[in-house]
């Protein structure tokens, strides 16, 4: 459903993404990993049409991303930035229903059907009880679930998440990872998410994309990445692999 050919981007001459070529199929959970500043967020923004590539081409469902009408594209591709934060705290249900905006005409208001869709998305994220709460009364994990529901409310076929697991406690990391897996399995959606947690990503993803200095350094199933020599080469991390998990050698 998604094809990248030699995609590059730079901020004021500083190269952020260089020559990325990749292909992503339907119904996949894909982990986007790499050190800080390796270009993960920029790549997601390029796919979300927030930025336009300086060179190369991105195709979504066989059509160049550039050629999609903006709202048409927004109905199919949902994007969650790293720290979404409305200037003024809002109710969760109002946040989620705004995810239906790409379906509304210029002067059109949300219908009851849109609110039903929003409520459904909230329950899917195990956040139905948060509907009438305000964002500033929520914990970081609760807010993450509300914003994921906002993305899901549009029922996109491609979901792009920028570090959805950051700042979550370990039980929420597990809950969130299960949720993403579940969405992919049940709705045939493709989810591409950036994360720093190799272990969790490897445990749940079908595939891992590793970015390094803006380039795609590895595109492989998790088992191929979770090898001591590969992790040392790509991340500078000395680890043993125990039951598929990376464990640092610690001497006390």
């Amino acid at each position, binding site marked *: 459903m998604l094809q990248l050919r030699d995609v590059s981007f730079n901020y*004021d001459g500083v190269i952020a993404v260089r020559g990325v070529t990749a292909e992503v199929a339907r119904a996949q959970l894909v982990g986007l990993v790499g050190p800080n500043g390796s270009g993960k967020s920029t790549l997601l*923004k390029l796919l*979300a*049409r*927030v930025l336009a590539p300086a060179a190369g081409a991105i195709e979504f469902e066989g059509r160049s991303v550039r050629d999609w*009408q*903006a*709202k*048409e*594209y*927004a109905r199919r*591709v*949902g*994007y969650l*930035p790293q720290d*979404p*934060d*409305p*200037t*003024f*705290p*809002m*109710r969760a*249900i*109002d946040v989620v229903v*705004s995810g239906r*905006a*790409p379906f*509304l005409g*210029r*002067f*059109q*208001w*949300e219908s*009851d059907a849109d*609110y039903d869709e929003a409520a459904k998305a909230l329950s899917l994220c195990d956040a139905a009880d948060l509907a009438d709460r*305000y964002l500033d*009364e929520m914990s970081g994990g609760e807010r993450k679930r509300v914003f994921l529901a906002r993305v899901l409310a549009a029922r996109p076929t491609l979901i792009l998440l920028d570090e959805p697991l950051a700042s979550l406690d370990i039980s929420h990391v597990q809950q969130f990872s299960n949720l993403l897996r579940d969405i992919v399995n049940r709705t045939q959606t493709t989810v591409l998410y950036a994360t720093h947690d190799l272990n969790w990503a490897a445990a749940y993803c079908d595939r891992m994309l590793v970015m390094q200095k803006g380039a795609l350094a590895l595109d492989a199933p998790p088992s191929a990445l979770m090898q001591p020599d590969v992790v040392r080469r790509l991340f500078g991390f000395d680890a043993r692999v125990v039951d598929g998990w990376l464990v640092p050698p610690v001497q006390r």
Partner: protein
Amino acid sequence: MGTFTLTASPRGRRLAGPMFLLAAALLIALFVASTFGTTAVSWREAFAGNVTARTVMFDLRLPRVLLAALVGAALAAAGVTFQTLLRNPLADPFILGVSGGAACGAALCTALGLARVPGLVSIVAFVGACTATAGVFLLARRREYTDPTRLLLSGLVLNALFSAIILIAFALSKASDLTAALRWMMGTLFGATWSDVVLLLAFVVVALVALVTISGDLRMLAFGEDDAKSRGVDVERVKLIGFAAASIVTGAAVAVSGIVGFVGLLVPHLVRLVWRRDFRILLPLSALGGAILLVLADLASRVALPTSELPVGAFTAILGVPFFLSLLRRSR
């Protein structure tokens, strides 16, 4: 919002109820404000054919209360737009140098002894406001992108420069010209004419129509520019239309009334405390709320002392702040 809410529908998206409520309140405010004043005349006398009553009502009070309503609506609509576009709750209509530019123009008129030429101060103030805003934009814009923080800083710095010019202009002005200039800088609706009303009405209508057209996009912009872009919003276009409409309508309001503080900052927050934080709702309700507040503030400034008028900008704060604080305490 806890237990305190005036939202009619449980899902809170209906606009008609709150708009009707505020429109009715505005009509009452307009009626009350035109009934009271230093001269004791009534609508009944005016309609009965009393010449003095007619003159006071139709030539003095009515244009004045209507102008107050329009200035209040213009400033509150501009305020809520700036707060949304700049993603900053402290933004007010004057934040991008509009007030500084306008005041600078007026002060230069005063220093050159031209302040008594009819209409000249208004025109120069409007030109000053537009020039200042355009300057702020040119300073803040880089590679077809307007950064909100750079806009805020550019506005702040230009306003500081204008203050310096104003001080120098005042130092060079004749003492007899200064009173009028100071009155203008404190904001006043004294001497409002029907042509002021018609002129400002045109600006307010055009600005509101422009803002309503992009209000769905501005609502999405509350979640951040990247988020809005990913939802199909043409962010740079929306910013351009929003800033232009809000700045021009502010410039027009300043030209007819001087610098009336606080309405543009306070009213959007008042509306936010009661109703949903959705720009499509905030815009019309802020405009109505601003109109009500300024009509009442102007009434208070006229009748507080029997002998002279007090600055209307002071009364927007005196009336607005207690109301705001009580709402703040009753909401979450």
